[in-house]
């Protein structure tokens, strides 16, 4: 790892202005992505700006109509939070399947999202549940929908210096299921991951690791939402639409074909489970 300057700003504003001072500066949250890349020499930052001192929100808050998760909340906090487990269990499940406990004790949800891996485990549940992200450039804040946040592999809508401050999740009575398939049971990146969510008979289907970003499959959702009755045939047709929409690649974790087959079977199973149909 090359040497760099380490900065501990005490405000968001300070963090952003430090960031903007150079072209090769990086924010540090839990470091579980960043330090790995620096060690491999893929990133050679001039300045590392520690967000942990910058006054970003860190905890998990339950408000009347929404849940707020600070960007610095660790995956462990989310995994073990009793009301996340109760209200958004599929997010807790996703958080608990990311890396190992040693990783999760450090890794933040902000880092997982801003890193913008197509396989990021917290992305599909947040998109499915209709989360919004509060972004800040130190002066102004803006809100974007989770599903609009990701732009490509390692690319987001964040402007230079802008950071992810908080995640807002509407409280609702919807039900969702997260599924992750990896080569070993735990501590592995997803070959595919996905969340299917149902609220007031409306479905949301989000697939990860099968496109340049996590992907919401609206055509498939519509198929379900329009149907009078959900039966096995409809579920299978829906799964087919999902498979036709995704564009997975072949890599170390699996071939494109295998990913399609996994998605087809598992998306059908998740829908079936939510709809009470034996698949």
């Amino acid at each position, binding site marked *: *790892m*090359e*040497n*760099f*300057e*380490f900065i501990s700003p005490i405000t968001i504003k300070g963090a952003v202005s430090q960031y903007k001072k150079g072209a090769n500066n990086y924010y*540090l949250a839990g*470091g*579980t992505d960043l*330090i*790995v890349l*620096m*060690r491999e020499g893929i990133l050679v930052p001039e300045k*590392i700006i*520690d967000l*942990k001192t910058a006054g970003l929100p860190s905890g998990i808050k339950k408000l009347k109509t929404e849940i707020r998760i600070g960007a610095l909340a660790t995956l*462990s906090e989310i995994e073990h939070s009793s009301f996340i487990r109760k209200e958004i269990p599929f997010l807790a499940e996703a958080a608990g399947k990311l*890396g*190992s*406990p*040693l*990783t999760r*004790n*450090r890794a933040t949800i902000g880092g997982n999202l801003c890193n913008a891996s197509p396989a990021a485990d917290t992305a599909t549940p947040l998109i499915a549940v209709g989360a919004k992200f509060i972004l800040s450039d130190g002066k102004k804040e803006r809100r974007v929908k989770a599903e609009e946040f990701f732009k490509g592999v390692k690319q987001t809508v964040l402007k230079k210096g802008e950071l992810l401050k908080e995640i807002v999740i509407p409280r609702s009575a919807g039900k969702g299921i997260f599924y992750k398939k990896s080569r070993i*049971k*735990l*501590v592995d990146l997803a070959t595919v991951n996905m969340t299917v969510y149902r609220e007031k008979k409306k479905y949301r289907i989000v697939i990860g690791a099968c496109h340049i970003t996590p992907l919401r499959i609206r055509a498939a959702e519509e198929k379900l939402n329009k149907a009078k009755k959900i039966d096995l045939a409809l579920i299978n047709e829906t799964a087919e639409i999902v498979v036709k929409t995704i564009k997975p690649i072949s890599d170390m974790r699996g071939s494109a074909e295998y990913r399609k087959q996994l998605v087809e079977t598992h998306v059908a199973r998740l829908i079936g489970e939510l709809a009470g149909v034996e698949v």
Partner: protein
Amino acid sequence: MSKDITLNVNGIDHHVNIQGNETLLKVLRDKLGLTAAKEGCGAGECGACAVIYNGSPASSCLILAVEAEGVEILTLEGITPKDHLHPIQQAFIDKGAVQCGFCTPGMIITTYSLLKSNPDPSEDEIKKAISGNLCRCTGYVQIIEAIREAARRLKRVKGRRK
């Protein structure tokens, strides 16, 4: 960048000069002589470098030493009592949970923290807790048995204190 910092390790403040790019693992091993934590991968994947950081176990190879200023850090050296072994350590010996020993410090750190938060873990909870600590020698079975045994012994110790 180089900087003088104070690291609180095993209850002792250490004043050290560090480089920005030095990991906590490197500073513990090279500058403080605390070599129980090992480098098995340097990339957060193996758990050999685990220490208790701010109350929970973490891979010290993915923590920068500069970040660690003001944080309480506990290593295997700090867990080991002065004149005997910790019940977890003894259980690891008694149950044959040690082979080459390279994963052992990290395993014991993770166990220590698990049993603090969950004194009576199920087998599945144990497996999940140590899933980030790779061991190539034992096949984990005797490690899991040792953790259960340690839990039993710690409960007994606690019971006696009451």
